[in-house]
């Protein structure tokens, strides 16, 4: 890739092609293309699911981009082609320049004529009184002490040229840098999935795209241990073992069979006081028919296990199917009848309910939930974070496929001086959870809440309570009394179906505008009277007999308000079920990444070469110096004083501002005897 071209006797057509391949313009064009492609690859998220692209770009552009390979830029045929051309271009460039550069490294050009020397970028002339031999010896010595290699040539006319050469490694820098690029590309090629691509093209490899169990994956998506290079990952729960690996491949994955078995004895994770993982590690036992003794090693982030040409990395962690004991509370049921559900993370449980069939998908269990503390709490405890305790993440999906995602905490958390059980819900992944705060009772349980809820839901009980709390007075006839009780019941039905909004809505739809204010006041008054009566009934059941409202404790008043707030939002909570986490057994899984990378050492070798080459290229300057010495042409009368005429010429292959000063300095040294 330099201007210097070496003419060889290759046939014309071939030379045109080689000239093109080795041309600087092509090289720079390829570099620019590579850059642009890389930019696309970073701006456009790579290797996402096809549907995501369709949502983002629309079906037309998604198709266009897909056929251009823009969703898998770094594996696209044209990208590989650019790389191949870069490889070719660099190779041609190196081959073409090699003979010239080697010659240039070796030759001293000592035979250059005096005229040629005078045409060098730097040159100067002076005379000395000493004779030629003395001067010659001195020049050779001076040049050598200055780091030049020298070669002396006696010209036919009796003059002598001492040629000096320094910094030959600069040329090596050229070879190193350029050959290193070729080496790195070869290494990368060894690690690429080119062979898999070929197998895919010939049809005996079809990546799997469905999430199915390992047994169901068809043989066409399996790779044997003979596969030369791979990089994939696998999640292994504690106490289990694996001899397969999943390789992400285009839109799906491939299953790689390993020639050894990895067993995960234990997985440990440590946290900072912020709740951030500090370190995680897995105790592994690797067994293979080739091993007499299994390898036992603990791996951690940044500390992999190397076995033959495989490497096993600690890359992530997750839930390995923690056992969950749940109670499912139906939120609309007139009686308390929670269903017990024993399940595990990653399981899907079908639920048959009076309001339809659902699937509960248990996605994750979290042992810790660290949240920043409030200023007050910080002042009290001195801690910046506190633990909200275990939580489960799950989805409830209805028959139409619509899903609600929940985050339920096992323990209550302290907010504004009260304890609440938090449960979050969302229907869109990217949105934050909206929380329902279930107030805890005096024993910090949810018992009272579900009792209260069931009571509201139960029309028969409602009637009983209302009748007790609101006995028929003598002034009201039976019909009016029955209507009043019915109204309260209907208000309860509206409330539990749609919350207070449901009541407003009912009024807006059924009452003429001019009466709304009046009717509204009455209805809400009745509603709150009804709810209060129900609550007092709960208190009675608990053994508290408040004589009047004023006797209700502040705690219970607050609880009542919080409970109403919670019940009021239940209509927005999705399918009316609350999943209570009763107990669990935490089982973690470790995310292992296993690679076989035969090209790694090749790439490292190339990289080392590249670094050395870059330094040679930039910091070793190839400098030439010629000193032509000839017998001074004396005026004749002082024949015994044989002076010498000296011409010094220099050339720097990379002229810099200091070149001139350095040359002058050298000339100064050459002129100064006894140096």
């Amino acid at each position: 890739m330099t201007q210097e071209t070496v003419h060889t006797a290759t046939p014309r057509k071939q030379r045109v092609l080689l000239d093109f391949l080795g041309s600087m313009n092509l090289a720079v064009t390829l570099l620019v293309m590579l850059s642009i492609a890389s930019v696309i690859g970073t701006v456009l998220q790579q290797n996402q699911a096809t549907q995501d692209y369709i949502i983002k770009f629309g079906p037309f552009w998604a198709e266009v981009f897909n056929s251009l390979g823009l969703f898998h830029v770094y594996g696209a045929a044209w990208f590989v082609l650019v790389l191949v051309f870069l490889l070719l271009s660099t190779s041609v460039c190196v081959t073409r320049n090699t003979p010239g550069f080697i010659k240039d490294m070796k030759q001293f050009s000592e035979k250059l004529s005096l005229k040629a020397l005078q045409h060098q970028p730097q040159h100067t002339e002076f005379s000395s009184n000493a004779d030629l031999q003395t001067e010659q010896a001195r020049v050779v010595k001076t040049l050598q002490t200055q780091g030049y290699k020298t070669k002396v040539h006696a010209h036919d006319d009796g003059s002598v040229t001492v040629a000096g050469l320094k910094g030959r490694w600069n040329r090596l820098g050229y070879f190193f840098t350029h050959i290193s690029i070729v080496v790195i590309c070869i290494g990368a090629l060894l690690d690429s999935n080119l062979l898999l691509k070929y197998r895919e093209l010939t049809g005996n490899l079809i990546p799997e795209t469905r999430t199915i169990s390992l047994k169901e994956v068809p043989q066409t998506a399996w790779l044997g241990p003979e596969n030369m290079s791979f990089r994939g990952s696998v999640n292994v729960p504690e106490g289990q073992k694996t001899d397969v690996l999943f390789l992400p491949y285009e839109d799906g994955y491939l299953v790689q069979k390993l020639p050894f078995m990895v067993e995960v004895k234990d997985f440990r994770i440590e946290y900072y006081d912020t709740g951030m993982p500090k370190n995680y590690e897995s105790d592994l036992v690797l067994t293979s028919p080739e091993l007499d003794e299994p390898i036992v090693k603990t791996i951690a982030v940044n500390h992999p296990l190397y076995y033959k040409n495989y490497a096993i990395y600690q890359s992530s962690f997750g839930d390995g199917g923690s056992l969950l004991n749940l109670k499912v509370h139906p939120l609309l049921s007139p009686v308390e009848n929670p269903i017990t559900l024993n399940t595990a993370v990653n399981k899907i449980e079908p639920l048959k309910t009076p309001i339809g069939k659902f699937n509960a998908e248990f996605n994750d269990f979290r042992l810790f939930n660290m949240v920043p503390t409030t200023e007050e709490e910080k002042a009290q405890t001195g801690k910046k974070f506190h633990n909200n305790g275990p939580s489960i993440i799950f989805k409830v999906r209805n028959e139409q496929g619509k899903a609600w995602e929940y985050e339920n905490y096992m323990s209550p958390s302290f907010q504004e001086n009260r304890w609440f059980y938090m449960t979050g819900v969302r229907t869109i992944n990217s949105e934050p959870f909206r929380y329902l705060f279930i107030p805890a009772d005096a024993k910090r349980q949810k018992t009272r809440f579900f009792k209260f809820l069931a009571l509201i839901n139960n029309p028969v009980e409602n009637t009983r309570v209302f009748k007790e709390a609101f006995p028929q007075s003598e002034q009201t006839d039976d019909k009016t009394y029955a209507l009043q009780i019915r109204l309260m019941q209907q208000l309860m039905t509206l409330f539990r179906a749609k919350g207070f909004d449901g009541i407003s809505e009912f009024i807006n739809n059924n009452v003429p505008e001019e009466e709304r204010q009046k009717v509204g006041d009455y209805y809400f008054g009745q509603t709150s009277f009804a709810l209060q009566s129900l609550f007092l009934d709960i208190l009675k059941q608990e053994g508290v007999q408040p004589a009047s409202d004023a006797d209700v404790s502040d705690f219970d008043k607050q609880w009542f308000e919080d409970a109403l707030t919670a019940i009021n939002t239940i209509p927005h909570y999705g399918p009316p079920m609350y999943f209570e986490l009763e107990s669990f057994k935490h089982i973690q899984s470790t995310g292992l990444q296993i690679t076989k990378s035969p090209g790694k050492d090749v790439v490292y070798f190339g990289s080392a070469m590249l670094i050395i080459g870059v330094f040679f290229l930039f910091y070793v300057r190839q400098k030439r110096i010629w000193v032509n010495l000839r017998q001074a042409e004396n005026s004749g009368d002082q024949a015994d004083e044989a002076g010498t005429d000296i011409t010094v010429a220099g050339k720097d292959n990379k002229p810099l501002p200091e070149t001139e000063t350095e040359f002058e300095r050298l000339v100064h040294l050459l002129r100064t005897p006894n140096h």
Partner: protein
Amino acid sequence: MQSETLTNHYEETKSFGLRDIVWAAFVIIGSLLAWDQYGHNMDVYEDAILGAVAIGLIWLGRFWPSFQPVTVMVTLLSVLAIYTYASHGNVISANEQAFFLKYLISSQSAIMWMNALFILAMVTYFLALYQRSEFTGKVATSMVWSAAVFGLVGMMVRWRESYIINVEYGHIPVSSLYEVFILFVVLTALIYLYYEQKYKTKTLGGFVMLVISAAVGFILWYTFDREAHVIQPLVPALKSWWMKIHVPANFIGYGTFSIAAMVGLAYLITAKVKEKNPNSGFVKRMPSLELMDDLMYKNIALGFAFFTIATVLGAMWAAEAWGGYWSWDPKETWALIVWLNYAAWLHIRMSKGWRGKPMAWWALIGLLVTTFAFLGVNMFLSGLHSYGEL
């Protein structure tokens, strides 16, 4: 006069003088003391890094003697800060009680001094350019020196502070975007100072300080708006000795590329003024176009070399931490783009022989590419390198 400077040049001795011996002894003793004090926290790789740093410092001090007093100052101030913390019972709140810590050398104070000095230096450099005052220029230069000292002290003390806050948090302060910005301004300033001293280019100071001040502006915003200066613990992937060499090598690259871009800017302005009025005072005060062109080359070459090293080290670290030396992660990819960009720049200059304006423009545009790799990736793209999200 000409011959005088020349003779000075010739007299330069390459032998090991008394000063060199004292310097080497200082570095060796300092390193040994540091190792004695903190060696129990270090693994064998870190021991090797300390050894290599000591050797590197001895070499750097000989190669660039002005770096010696900087090192001595940084050492003294850092030791004073560490000592003050220790005498206050090694609690972080000492930085609000002890006078020296509060006003001068706790990491936050030192960094604030650095910020102020850099901005003042920029103003002073431009003032010197306008006044044609050599004295003002010298004041500006000494401000940059002081700022660099404060920046380095800030980093050293922050390193110690991270251990004082919580031993588990302890780490070299090159892990977050905030921390590397400080590394960036300090390295850029030091590299600039080297060239300023070597080529007597004080008039370029203001231009280089432009990019440094922009970075300082970012640091201030990041501190006051985002509280990014709070020391955070490391994510597991960053807990490695690789960080100690990968990050600084990278930032020598970023620093030199920035200097090259600013010299390019100065070049373009000077060339423009020169076209209109070749005898203008501004043109006379600025370094020659040839020198600026060469400075661009020297900076890009140095940066390219270190950027290459940093990328290779990064690949090796990635292989150990993420299981692959190359994952086409956005940061990796942008590092490649930066590398390709400057590779093309160097090719065009070295083999096509381009000089001057187009190369200056290219160096300037190169800074945009570099800035995107440095900042933009964190802001707009997500990936494995998401350690300093904005």
